[in-house]
């Protein structure tokens, strides 16, 4: 997995973060099987690993699953390429190139962070340099292991102390990698770069740059225009699929940990070492190889790519299977380059352009969701829920779908071109989702700007008018529309309707630094609204569970978004392309089911929800009849005056209309499923939801900072004392003071004695003042 080719370790078993790692080779390609700790590599971590296969800039995870005995494992290719470590050692690297590699590494690890994957101890040996691209190995594999001695220097102090790696701990490692990449040139590097190293190396996580993207941006700035830019490498593992599939299958049905341990033991006693090469040996592998042979025999296929192990007798040693260099295929035409934090169309062909894009993209103020390009190919991997045999199935599926699609495309084209009113025909007859996608409903509510005055001012959100013609790009409102005839009640979505943000600070930020997993944008409207409509119209969406007492599993378009979701919890944000989504909530099951279609039970709620271009929260709550329903709210991130903040109060309780009170003043009545918005001075605001009888149903003192939005959802049923407030926080609404008035007397540029002269000798005053100006300018020249 990592840099075994460069270490003295010549065995089949190594350790990555104290995890057993088994290297296998078929003579042409090599793969590593890393056995993770069951305590940390849970189902969701394995899922994250599996779903990272498309991430450019990292050595891909070919497979991740549980073995037969419940031990989690991950399969990765062996990449034999120069690493940053080897390049620095040989001195073949200019410091600007070294720093460029560090920058690309930061951007690549940032993308992993967005998927909830961390490294823990990125070292130059983990950074593979493939031409002008880089790939990091070991991403996502460090969770829950023990840190080996040679990693200590690269890990943040808290990771050394046993904490799980985080965004900021990886930033620490990035600082160390950058330092190493500069080599002796560190003494002459720009100050900003040396400062960045200092900043990243802080022992306190909070004092480091908040994200790898921030790190990359600062570095890019320090390097300037002349730097060499590196991109993220996309390492094809297709040629290793056979090997990986067999290894996975064998490990799955065997027990990899036992396998690996027995190998290790035997290795130790036999003292096998083939320096620089990976050796597959001994008992465990013998058994493993036997397993693999079985697999092969069972399937009766794949003759000629058999896994060659000369001797499968337990206890003996097999002479080295030399790991051949992986042809580090970097098919640039398909390299799904990552676009920093810019919205990029998910289409694969955009990737190349993005890769060439050397504009250092600053993270801006948004910490909410970092948009990134997901190759069209990548998102679909997730849809294939089968695990080990899926590669074969995928191939078959590919061929089938490819042929079918090509064939039918022609037919479809014929139908479309035949001049029938195809859009309406589809809209009328096809399932609701398609028609929704075609019409791209968007009800642009009129702007009733919440007054941004220092005093508390409130605007009640009007109900959105019925949909008007509007492109998805401009869609600023979210609406909930009935799903199918069978769906339960729906409510018209209330919309906070403030004028669209006019400054660049409109991106929302959550207070949690949690990494975001981004749901790949779907492409519903794209083919029907082909003019690039989806580019700018992705929205960060959070899902809030406001139905009391029901643990649920949430499905979006039939796929699990999150499972075991509890009342009062918030999931997301996920990035969704503007359009219509089927959202269904089921009672939680002990064992998560990936596909809604595989569930036998009926959903609690199943609705079609339309997402616009703006950040939104999708709330599951009780309506005023006590029935569960879904409502989408757009988050109002329009700027507020300096020193101000915005609070939004949502009535999602099963009790009909309530009065909203802010700082003791009733600011409006909120019907069920509606909201009111108020701009208040930054500080603590007392929020109360008041019932008919004047009784406070639920309340909270909420501290909202300058330029922050606090969205407060009152959920539950007051009658059963389950009413509570759930809070979401967003930042990025702030504006700077309008000015700094710091003088009113005109003393500057005069001295006391000159002031005295001024009274008497006008001409001398002019001379004195001009002298003063000259002196002042001289001082100025220092800056």
């Amino acid at each position, binding site marked *: 997995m990592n840099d075994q080719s460069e270490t003295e370790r010549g065995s089949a078993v190594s350790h990555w973060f104290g995890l057993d790692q088994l290297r296998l080779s078929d003579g042409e390609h090599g793969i590593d099987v890393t056995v993770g700790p069951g305590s940390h590599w849970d189902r969701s971590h394995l899922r994250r690993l599996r779903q990272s296969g498309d991430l450019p800039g990292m050595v891909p995870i070919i497979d991740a699953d549980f073995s037969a005995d419940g031990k989690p494992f991950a399969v990765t290719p062996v990449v034999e390429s120069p690493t940053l470590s080897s390049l620095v050692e040989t001195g073949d690297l200019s410091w600007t190139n070294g720093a460029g590699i560090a920058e690309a590494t930061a951007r690549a690890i940032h993308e992993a962070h967005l998927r909830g994957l961390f490294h823990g101890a990125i070292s130059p040996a983990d950074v593979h340099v493939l031409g002008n691209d880089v790939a990091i190995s070991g991403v996502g594999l460090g969770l829950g292991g023990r840190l080996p001695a040679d990693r200590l220097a690269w890990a943040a102090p808290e990771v050394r102390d046993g904490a799980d790696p985080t965004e900021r701990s990886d930033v620490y490692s990035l600082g160390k990698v950058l330092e190493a990449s500069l080599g002796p040139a560190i003494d002459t590097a720009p100050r900003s770069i040396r400062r960045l190293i200092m900043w990243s190396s802080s022992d306190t996580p909070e004092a480091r740059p908040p994200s790898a993207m921030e790190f990359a941006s600062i570095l890019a700035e320090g390097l300037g225009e002349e730097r060499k830019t590196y991109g993220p490498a996309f390492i094809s593992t297709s040629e290793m699929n056979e090997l990986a599939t067999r290894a996975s299958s064998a490990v799955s049905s065997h027990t990899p940990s036992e396998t690996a341990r027995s190998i290790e033991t035997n290795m130790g006693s036999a003292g096998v070492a083939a320096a620089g090469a990976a050796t597959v040996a001994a008992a465990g592998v013998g058994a493993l190889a036997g397993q693999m042979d079985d697999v092969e025999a069972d399937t009766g296929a794949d003759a000629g790519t058999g896994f060659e192990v000369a001797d499968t007798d337990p206890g003996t040693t097999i002479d080295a299977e030399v790991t051949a260099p992986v042809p580090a295929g970097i098919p640039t035409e398909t390299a799904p380059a990552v676009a920093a934090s810019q919205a990029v169309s998910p289409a694969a062909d955009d990737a190349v352009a993005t890769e060439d894009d050397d504009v250092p993209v600053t993270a801006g103020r948004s910490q909410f969701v970092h948009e990134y390009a997901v190759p069209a190919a990548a998102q679909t991997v997730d849809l294939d829920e089968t695990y080990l045999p899926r590669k074969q199935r995928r191939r078959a599926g590919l061929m089938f*779908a490819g042929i079918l699609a090509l064939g039918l495309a022609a037919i479809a084209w014929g139908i479309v071109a035949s001049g029938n009113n195809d859009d309406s*025909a589809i809209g009328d007859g096809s399932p609701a989702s398609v028609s929704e996608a075609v019409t791209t409903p968007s009800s642009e509510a009129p702007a009733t700007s919440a007054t941004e005055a220092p005093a508390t001012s409130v605007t009640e959100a009007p109900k959105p008018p019925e949909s008007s013609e509007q492109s998805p790009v401009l869609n600023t409102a979210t609406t909930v529309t009935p799903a199918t005839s069978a769906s339960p009640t729906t409510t018209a979505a209330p919309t906070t309707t403030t004028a669209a943000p006019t400054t660049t600070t409109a991106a929302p930020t959550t*207070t949690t630094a949690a990494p975001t997993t981004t749901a790949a944008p779907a492409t519903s409207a794209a083919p029907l609204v082909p003019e690039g409509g989806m580019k700018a119209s992705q929205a960060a969406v959070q899902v809030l569970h406001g139905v009391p007492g029901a643990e649920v599993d949430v499905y979006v378009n039939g796929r699990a978004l999150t499972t075991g979701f509890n009342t009062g919890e918030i999931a997301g944000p996920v990035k969704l392309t503007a359009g219509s989504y089927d959202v269904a909530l089921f009672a939680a099951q002990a064992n998560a089911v990936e596909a809604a279609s595989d569930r036998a039970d009926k959903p609690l709620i199943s609705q079609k929800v339309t997402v616009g271009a703006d950040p939104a929260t999708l709330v599951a709550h009780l309506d005023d009849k006590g029935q569960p329903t879904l409502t989408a709210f757009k988050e109002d991130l329009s700027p507020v005056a300096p020193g101000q903040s915005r609070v939004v109060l949502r009535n999602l309780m099963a009790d009909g209309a309530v009065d909203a009170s802010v700082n003791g003043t009733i600011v409006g009545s909120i019907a069920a499923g509606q909201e009111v918005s108020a701009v208040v001075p930054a500080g603590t605001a007392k929020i109360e939801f008041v019932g008919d009888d004047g009784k406070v149903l639920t309340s909270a003192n909420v501290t909202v900072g300058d330029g922050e939005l606090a969205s407060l959802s009152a959920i539950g049923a007051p009658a059963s004392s389950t009413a509570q407030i759930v809070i979401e926080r967003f930042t990025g609404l702030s504006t700077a003071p309008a000015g700094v008035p710091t003088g009113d007397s005109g003393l500057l540029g005069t001295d006391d004695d000159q002031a005295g002269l001024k009274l008497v000798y006008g001409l001398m005053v002019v001379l004195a003042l001009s002298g003063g100006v000259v002196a002042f300018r001289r001082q100025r020249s220092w800056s």
Partner: protein
Amino acid sequence: MNHPVAHGAIVLAIALASVGSIVTAQSDRASGATGGSGRAMLESEAFVPASGTGVPVRNGSIESDQAAAAARVTRHPTQVQVGAIGLEAPVIPVGVDDKSQFDVPIATTVGWYRYGSAPGQPGASVLAAHVDYNGDRGAFYDLSKLKPGDRVTVKMDDGATLQFTVTGVYEVQKHELPAEELFRKDGTPVLNLITCGGTFNPQKHSYNANVVVTAEPADAVSAQSLTA
């Protein structure tokens, strides 16, 4: 639902899949995934977003929010010293006035913009004071005389003393004040000292420019000097 039309939708969906195939069938890997896409489309008769399992989930209750807020340590500056110009002045937290301008304290007191960052924290911490006030010199009267390398010392309310090193001194027309940058809330820690400068307009009783002194944490700066 009427069959031929539904069929048409499916056909269209497949056509879309085929477009995807053509675009992405550059590698085994990519096209393999496209196969999955086609299958999903067939099954659902509509697009399916990638499963977002693994999305972060957090407790949104007001109690946990308040607990998090209580755990946050906030501190603010109480005094600023600049030996090079003999400045030693008290600092108070301030916000904005009724014109949304920096609410600069009177006379010789320095204001710290409390909606920005605290000194030493990520983002910009801003101290502003008058160059003159009501005919007297203000706390920042000599600010423009600072030079890069000069030391700025900030005392915090918890007793900590933070050292900063001046890295830049410049004058900027008030209407061109880069406020967004000077008051940025994130990024590298920086301390910005602001006062007035330029030409005085007796009618308006104000200057037409601001003097901005930028200082950075001394440990970062001095470490660079050492390595340089």
